[in-house]
């Protein structure tokens, strides 16, 4: 066996020695990087470039040679508004409805999720009974597929679902949770918080456990109240982790699509249509497929995500550097 491996290595050695001789040892590194670079170029860099190109073309044809150059036309279609606060005054009102829905969704979802995740992490960090069990309970929804999450909640909230059965059982009037714009939006945020909170709870829990115990002991000796301990010790020492959680959840929240799409389909009307759904429906699900408009919208979305990613990098570096 060893002889066989040695023999194989010799076979590889021959071209490697030749390449080293031809290219020099420093350039040889590129040869090793080449497969990865090719894959990255083909499946990541090229699609990004193509996205920019498609965003400047019109027509429902997929092949570039069949498409017409329209310059910034798609961006103009998306951004032409008489009043940016009123989607009805915009040329593409559905895009702006999706933008506003996404902004509200992100603000509410991230706010509630980080808040609840912190509360849960604090609770799970304290000495409670069956702590391990509760840690699993809160993390369990993270393991579920977004579509499963959406379907479970749809069964609960539909007209003849569990929630209405419970209301009826208690003698209350039933509510059409998914037919009312405001309720549908509320539940979309709620489900998203429920599904993802466990992940951020876990990160915050790790952050809490990294805080040295002696700091708390010193506070206890100084008779600091629990609230004062939280405000003066826990929160400041947890802040770097909090910033990472905040930025990560912001990025994830802007990208939300699958669970809300499976849950409400973007409705009622366009009440829960988020930006990714707009891109998907414009470019792929709708007829005709407006690839140019979808590409332009996805580039605008990408700009937001790039800003958030830089924010996350900055926060992580700040965290590492203390």
């Amino acid at each position, binding site marked *: 066996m060893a002889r066989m491996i040695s023999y194989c290595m010799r076979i590889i050695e021959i071209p490697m020695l030749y390449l080293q001789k031809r290219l020099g040892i420093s350039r040889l590194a590129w040869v090793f990087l080449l497969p990865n670079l090719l894959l990255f170029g083909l499946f990541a860099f090229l699609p990004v470039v193509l996205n920019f190109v498609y965003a400047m073309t019109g027509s429902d044809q*997929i092949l570039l040679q069949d498409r017409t150059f329209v310059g910034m036309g798609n961006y103009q279609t998306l951004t032409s508004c008489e009043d940016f606060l009123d989607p009805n005054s915009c040329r593409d009102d559905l895009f702006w409805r999706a933008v506003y829905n996404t902004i509200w969704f992100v603000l509410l979802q991230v706010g509630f999720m980080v808040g609840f995740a912190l509360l849960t992490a604090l609770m799970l960090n304290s000495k409670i009974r069956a702590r391990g069990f509760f840690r699993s309970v809160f993390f369990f929804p993270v393991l579920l597929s977004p579509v499963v999450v959406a379907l479970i909640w749809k069964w609960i909230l539909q007209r003849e679902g569990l929630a209405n059965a419970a209301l009826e059982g208690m003698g209350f009037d039933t509510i059409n949770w998914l037919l009312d714009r405001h309720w549908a939006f509320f539940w979309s945020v709620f489900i998203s918080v429920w599904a993802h909170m466990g992940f951020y709870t876990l990160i915050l829990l790790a952050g809490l456990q990294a805080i040295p115990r002696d700091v708390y002991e010193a506070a206890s000796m100084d008779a600091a109240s629990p609230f004062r301990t939280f405000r003066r010790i826990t929160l400041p020492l947890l802040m770097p982790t909090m910033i990472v959680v905040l930025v990560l959840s912001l990025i994830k929240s802007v990208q939300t699509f699958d669970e809300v799409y499976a849950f409400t389909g973007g*409705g*009622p009307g366009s009440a829960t249509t988020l930006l990714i759904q707009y891109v998907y429906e414009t470019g792929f699900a709708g007829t005709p497929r407006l690839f140019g408009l979808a590409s332009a919208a996805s580039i605008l979305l990408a700009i937001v995500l790039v800003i958030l990613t830089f924010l996350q990098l900055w926060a992580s570096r700040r965290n590492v550097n203390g």
Partner: protein
Amino acid sequence: MKFRKNVVAQLVLLASLGTAASFTQAQELRFMCSTDGDECEVLDDLITRFEQENEGVDITVDIVPYKSIQENLPVQLAAGSGPDIAKVTDLGGLSQYYLDISPYIDADYWEQSFGDILNWYRKSPEDKGIYGMHSQLTITGGYINRTLFDQAEVEPPAADASWEEWAEAVAAVAEATETPYLMAMDRSGHRIAGPAISDGAKLFADDGTPALVDEGFTRFVTKFVEWNNNGTMLRDVWAGTGGDTYQDASQEFISGSLVYYYSGSWQVGKFDNEIGDAFDWQVVGTPCGEVACSGMPGGAGIVGFSTTEHPEIVGKLLDYLAQEDNYAELTARTRNIPAHAAVAAKGVDYEGASAPAAAALNAWGQQVEKISPVAYAYQGYKHNRAMFGITMSRVSQAIVGELSIEEAMERATADLEQTMSEVDAK
């Protein structure tokens, strides 16, 4: 000498095997099929027989979800790949990729058998090619829960009754029988088109360009929005989802909690299987509007694609399926309405179908003559899917109150203009 003979013999054998193998490989075709019943299985049976009659032909039937036909197939075709044959529903939208099979078939037979339906597959009115075999003719219209009508002692309105008369009768039935839902219509631009056409929607301008919104269309949409908001129509169907997502109300009808359901002929098999003898149901066609009592025709067809390496076999297969006996068998076994004139004229023996299913299929057959020419033109228009999507999206917004009806109609007009500018930008 003997050795040389052996070598030559072996070479000849190898060469012949190689030729045979390459010949076999040259006849391999792929058929992309989706089904909401057993169409693909029945087609597979017929194709197996075709293969037996045509040695060396090997057709693989790939059964895929309907979503793949809708979303993946157009992208594959645009990229120059895709199957040799497919069962499609976007008949006009994919017409640019179809294979013209007229060189391989008896065109006169096809013209006599399928008539104007062949236009649904053509690229333009000038196009005289033959591209697809309409395997599944469907018609939209209403079903009632007849048992509820009988229990309520309400006589179903006559065949020429209006939507308003139906709404009144259904409300009486629902009240008498304490049925929770009165009427429902599938969330589909295709479904709402029949009643809108019946109310006077023309859908095309005089010069033939698409014009979704007019007086007739707005009239029906106004009624429809009002019915969704006053409880006449089950609001969950149109308001319960967004964008241009399809939604039906078949489960509500099957469970007996819906009195009147506007859908289409393709539901017969499902109702027959799932309702069984739980209650009696009946096909009642499309209520009348101001100008007609028309449903929308539609359905699915089998087409070949111009990228195929075996156009002749594709043509032969479609011709085989279109032969009267085979078509009659396909129609009977899949419980569909025939689009083939001779098969329709002779009547289909839906062997094994229950009495309600057979009665329903015959009732749908009788609805064919009521279909308005506008409905045929709309079904045959190659960008009708875009118009269906716009209708669904904007009417839903009007139902949930995001837009007024006037705003929804303005938006629908603008959406259509934007769409047409995109499809014309080639």
